[in-house]
């Protein structure tokens, strides 16, 4: 019986193609918008997460100054002392390791090839705090680190530009005006979240960079690895207390350094995108509701218009349940058709918008299933009232209806 009813519904929809299409337009737009918004929201969140996690999780970055792009006036706050890092590692609970960082710009030369790049000085702890596996070669050993030996680990961009396809480990390159042995090549990391090629780098023991490039023993950045069992706020508080003391700040004086918590930023950005996605999805959901009302409206018109047909069916021997089912199935088939078209429209929209916005193309199965199920449910909910009205008609009156 349901198969037959289904057939009748399809026949009836096919008889009024334009009207059927206009009826389900609301559902198409609603389903399309909801699926598009949720999928794009997920893609954005994923992208943000990826960018942030490129900076490393459970890491605090400590820099001199008052924050990015601030502290324009007044004297430049002093860099950190080389003893600050070990002090933090030793005295702040929950800190696993501290990697100091010094930085300079220099040209790297190998045989005929020149490449201007960033020279980063750090300690082996940097690779523990912010893991970065090697593609080949090795990290430097404690003796080399202690001595500030001219050994370097190069990023993939530098490798490509200096060595083309050739072997880099074991070669000697010139960086600035020193020559150093390449002991390792890093795996590719790609673009950083906020621009810049992370692979365009030469990393050396910090003492070598301080001595040969910067010319002092100051530290521009401290990468602090934290144990995730400790609260980040507590670590930050005691870290700030320690640094204020070491930098001899009076009570009431502002910090002349700032702590940047990548996890906190990541969480904030994620929750912001999630909230935005929810709001936009809710708005899109309203159009689904409007679509449902559209279906109810057309079904009511249809019942009135087809009163005589209903009378004929009842006279022929249709029971009330069959008439109800016919109109209900018609509404559900209509709305599911709308849902299906909406899903197709959504995939096209997601494709176009992802491409335009530089986002990865995502297919989120759950939201497609949910949106389709909702479109079917809308058919049931908004189709029931008109269907019940049709089933309740008196056959004699219905047959007399003009």
């Amino acid at each position, binding site marked *: 019986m349901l198969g*037959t009813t289904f057939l009748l519904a399809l*026949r009836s929809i096919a008889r009024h193609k334009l009207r059927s299409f206009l009826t389900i337009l609301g559902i198409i737009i609603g389903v399309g918008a909801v699926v598009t918004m949720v999928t794009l929201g997920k893609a954005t969140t994923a992208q943000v997460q990826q960018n942030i996690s490129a900076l490393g999780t459970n890491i605090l970055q400590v820099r001199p100054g008052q924050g990015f792009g601030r502290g324009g006036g007044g004297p430049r706050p002093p860099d950190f002392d080389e003893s600050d890092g070990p002090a933090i590692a030793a005295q702040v609970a929950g800190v696993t390791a501290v990697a100091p960082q010094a930085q300079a710009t220099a040209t790297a030369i190998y045989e005929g090839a020149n490449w201007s790049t960033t020279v980063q000085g750090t300690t082996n702890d940097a690779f523990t705090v912010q893991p970065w596996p090697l593609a080949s070669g090795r990290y430097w050993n404690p003796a080399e680190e202690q001595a500030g030996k001219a050994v370097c680990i190069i990023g993939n961009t530098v490798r490509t530009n200096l060595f083309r396809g050739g072997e880099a480990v074991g070669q000697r390159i010139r960086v600035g005006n020193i020559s150093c042995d390449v002991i390792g090549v890093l795996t590719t990391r790609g673009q950083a979240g906020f621009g810049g090629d992370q692979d365009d780098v030469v990393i050396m023991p910090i003492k070598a960079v301080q001595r040969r490039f910067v010319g002092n023993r100051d530290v521009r950045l401290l990468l602090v690895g934290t144990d995730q069992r400790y609260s980040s706020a507590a670590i930050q508080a005691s870290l700030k207390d320690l640094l204020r003391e070491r930098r001899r700040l009076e009570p009431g004086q502002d910090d002349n350094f700032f702590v940047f918590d990548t996890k906190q930023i990541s969480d904030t950005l994620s929750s912001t995108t999630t909230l935005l996605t929810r709001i936009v999805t809710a708005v899109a959901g309203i159009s689904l509701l409007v679509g449902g009302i559209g279906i109810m409206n057309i079904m009511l018109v249809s019942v009135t218009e087809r009163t005589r047909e209903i009378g004929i069916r*009842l*006279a*022929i*021997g*249709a029971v*009330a349940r*069959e008439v109800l089912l016919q109109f209900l199935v018609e509404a559900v088939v209509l709305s599911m058709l709308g849902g299906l078209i909406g899903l197709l429209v959504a995939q096209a929209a997601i494709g176009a918008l992802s491409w335009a916005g530089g986002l990865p193309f995502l297919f989120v199965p759950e939201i497609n299933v949910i949106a389709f199920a909702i479109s079917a449910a809308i058919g049931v909910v908004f189709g029931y009232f008109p269907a019940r009205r049709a089933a309740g008609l008196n056959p*004699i009156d219905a047959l007399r209806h003009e």
Partner: protein
Amino acid sequence: MADPLISLRGVTKVYGEGATQFRALKGIDLDIAGGDFVAVMGPSGSGKSTTMNILGCLDVPSGGTFLFRGHHVETLDRDQRALLRRRYLGFVFQGFNLLSRTTALENVELPLLYRGDEKKARRATAMAALEKVGLDRWWDHTPAELSGGQQQRVAIARAIVTSPDVLLADEPTGNLDSERSVEIMELLTGLNRDSGITVLMVTHEPDMAAFARTVIHFKDGLVERIEQGHRQGEAVA
């Protein structure tokens, strides 16, 4: 004599309540034998349509009893009566009442759909019914593409496709010219004679009633008189 197919006893029908109350039927006693061809006549408001609605199980009497094949119909609910119509009754209306934008075959198939026939059987049975009314070659035409007489024949095919016991026809020739009317009457007479189907027909045209074997005259909500054993083709008094 065998039990009648249809038996009404003291059937009344009252519409409305209080001051606006209208007694459409004031106590009808009627027996109709299986295989009969009955014409129901009477002026409008005489109760003939109300009686036909009750006989067609579309409506229930306010009082009295209605036995169909020995079963009480007045106690059945809406859906039970619908199933009774599906199984035993066929309807032909003055206005044809075919589904528009639907082919003749699909129209005739409709009762079989509700009966739950398989597609193949449905097709075959519906085509056979169309053949009986001489329209098998027009099966894929919609009502708009058929003449009035052809539409009424499709409607008759739809009414007989389930091989019902009773065919109820409400002024079946009311919208047709006299030539088409005679064709339709001959078709109904033939079905009655060959298939043994009981025909109940409302008409106000004596020419049409002349095709019946029994003619029942209604007046003021009562049966005025019954002409029985009427020779078909003879003029109706």
